[in-house]
């Protein structure tokens, strides 16, 4: 049996100690609920996203049809009006993301879902949500690219785009599930993080996960932990739209609340008014950066499988993380000491956990459906001569890498 633990990494202290393993075990949302509802339902990943959004309190969706994400829109078109929410099919993806940001400024918990081509169109507005610190969630069910690519085939080409896609230098929060159940959980988490940190959160999915059907047991919705944005409690004349406390989390008023605030994509001061002053610009940029960096422990989520005594590790995300888990199981069955490190949060990157892994193992196998995007991040973190060797498996042909292929690579490096 493989032992899986989900952990959140500790923040970097003065000396960045490798403390990823001695971390708090976070109970997955669904675990605690399984007793209440025993019935499992068969559901696809996109459906789980829609259900997760509703569970998180999503009440506004604007989107544009695109394979392989369309089911999210179809389900929410049916469900949102039933719960008093709003669904809109817009004229394009740019309009979709602008509408959800607008709705969020008016107080909505808003969502859009798209795939590569639409995600590219959204990049400018994603930057707008970040600079204006407006909560919103974007689901990108990745397909093989570039351009129109292979609309119904998987690819993991958007990992770097989800970090650096929008111009300017703003951090990103990106979550990446590996199963239908986790798609549900991470959709809720995406909303919670968006509300808590006042930013746009991206949920990356794989085409095969979006369309894959599996049996899941969803939690009793009344027990789902939902975070809502902090509302200001000061009189309007004292309100600063970008006020900060020690953790860089600030209250946010909505349009119509009587605060009469200004929002602009221009670099702005604490009140939201445009500024060209270097000190105010620096302050704004620092806040965007620090609200992520100071909360790494809360943001980063990883799963480790059999890493305690592993000599070779596999590092993979999303659907490749799932294939890797199977490969690790097969390797263990053959008596090899192999483990898995899978990031549930890919941005911010789990630096501490990866650094520890690189120290502990002699090699890390990195299977990806691209030319090596996570691999690039691992290369960044290789420091010592004794750090584990990095071995890549890349595929870019619209098919997935199978557990057997990963196992083959594990064996090659294991016996080296």
């Amino acid at each position, binding site marked *: 049996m493989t032992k899986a633990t989900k952990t959140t990494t500790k923040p970097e202290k003065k000396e960045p100690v490798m403390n990823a393993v001695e971390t708090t075990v976070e109970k997955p949302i669904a675990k605690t609920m399984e007793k209440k509802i025993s019935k499992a339902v068969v559901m696809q990943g996109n459906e789980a996203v829609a259900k997760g959004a509703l569970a998180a309190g999503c*009440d*506004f969706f*604007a989107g544009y049809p695109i394979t392989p994400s369309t089911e999210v829109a179809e389900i929410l078109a049916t469900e949102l*009006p*039933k719960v*008093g929410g*709003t669904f*809109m099919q*817009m*004229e*394009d993806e*740019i*309009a979709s993301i*602008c*509408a*959800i*940001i*607008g*709705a*969020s*400024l*008016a*107080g*909505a918990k*808003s969502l859009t879902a798209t795939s590569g081509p639409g995600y590219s169109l959204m990049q*400018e*507005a994603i930057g*707008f949500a970040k600079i204006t610190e407006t909560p919103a969630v974007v689901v990108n069910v990745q397909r093989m690219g570039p351009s129109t690519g292979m609309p119904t085939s998987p690819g993991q080409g958007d990992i770097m785009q989800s970090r650096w896609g929008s111009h300017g230098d703003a951090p990103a929060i990106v979550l990446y599930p590996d199963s239908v159940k986790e798609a549900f959980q991470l959709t809720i988490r995406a909303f919670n993080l968006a509300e808590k940190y006042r930013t746009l959160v991206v949920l990356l999915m794989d085409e095969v996960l979006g369309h894959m059907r599996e049996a899941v047991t969803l939690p009793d919705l009344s027990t789902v932990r939902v975070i809502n944005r902090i509302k200001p409690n000061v009189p309007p004349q004292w309100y600063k739209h970008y006020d900060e406390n020690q953790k860089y989390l600030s209250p946010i008023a909505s*349009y*119509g*609340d*009587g*605060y*009469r*605030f*200004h*929002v*602009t*994509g*221009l670099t702005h001061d604490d*009140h939201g*008014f*445009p500024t060209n002053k270097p000190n105010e610009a620096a302050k704004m940029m620092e806040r965007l950066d620090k609200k992520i960096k100071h909360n790494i422990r809360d943001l980063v989520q990883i799963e480790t499988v059999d890493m305690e005594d592993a000599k070779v590790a596999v590092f993979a995300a999303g659907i490749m993380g799932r294939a890797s888990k199977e490969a690790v199981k097969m390797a263990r069955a053959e008596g090899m000491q192999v483990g898995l490190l899978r990031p549930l949060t890919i941005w911010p990157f789990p630096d501490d956990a990866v650094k520890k892994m690189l120290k502990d193992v002699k090699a890390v196998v990195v299977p990806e459906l691209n030319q090596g995007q996570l691999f690039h991040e691992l290369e960044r973190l290789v420091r010592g001569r004794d750090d584990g060797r990095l071995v890549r498996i890349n595929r870019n042909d619209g098919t997935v890498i199978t557990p057997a292929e990963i196992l083959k690579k594990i064996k090659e490096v294991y016996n080296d």
Partner: protein
Amino acid sequence: MTKIPQRKIHDYLRHDKKFPHVWCSGCSNGIVLGAVIRAIDELKLDRNNIVMVSGIGCSSRMPVYVDFDTLHSLHGRAIAFATGIKMYKPGMKVIVITGDGDATAIGGNHFIHAARRNLDLTVILLNNSIYGMTGGQYSPATPHGARATTTPYGNIDPDFDICKLAIGAGATHVARTTAFHALELQKQIKEGIEHVGFSLIEAICACPVIFGKLNKKGDAPSMMRNMRDNSITIAAAEKLPKEQVEGKIIRGTFIKEDRTEYTQAYAELRAKVVAEDGNDD
């Protein structure tokens, strides 16, 4: 029309925060801003219930000066942002401030689709025939033959008739006047805000510093005089032969009709779905 003292206008401005404004001397944008404020004051609207949304450009700098909820969004996307706000809070008055380039070039798609939906937005389009903020490039509203920094040999593009575009797309209230006719503008804006449905008010504006200079239109007063002398009302235009109307700015309300408004249509849909959903149980 009642005269509103200056102090009253100041009352609606963030005058202690964001002034002086960015607009050039002779620019018409301030006249339009005055007309917007007077229209809102006449309607006695609750200023906590107004959102002013703009895109990018000279005219789109307007929201920062007024004491409402304000959003200075992305180039071309004002109407898309406004759609999200209006759909989520249908009770709010959503006023969109945009320019000819912002609304009909980069934002053309959102413009026609919001008009098609008949979403209750009041779109005030300040048409100065040029991209002023970037220094004078031609827009879809730059007249044929005119000079811009990117049409150094004269503009070969035909220009949009923006009001016709809006009518064709399904807008239910469409009007046009000029910055010279400030009181007429104020009346049109007032009617636009009162109208339930997509409302476009095209305000022809003077940009003496860039468009005027490039096209030898004279100084700001002469451009204002040109608006007076070269514009006629719809009624007057109907009486004149076609040749005499050509090249003139036609002022007035082109269309004002009732058609199902989009947030109301969605509210009805929602009520219907909820009722049916209840019956299923």
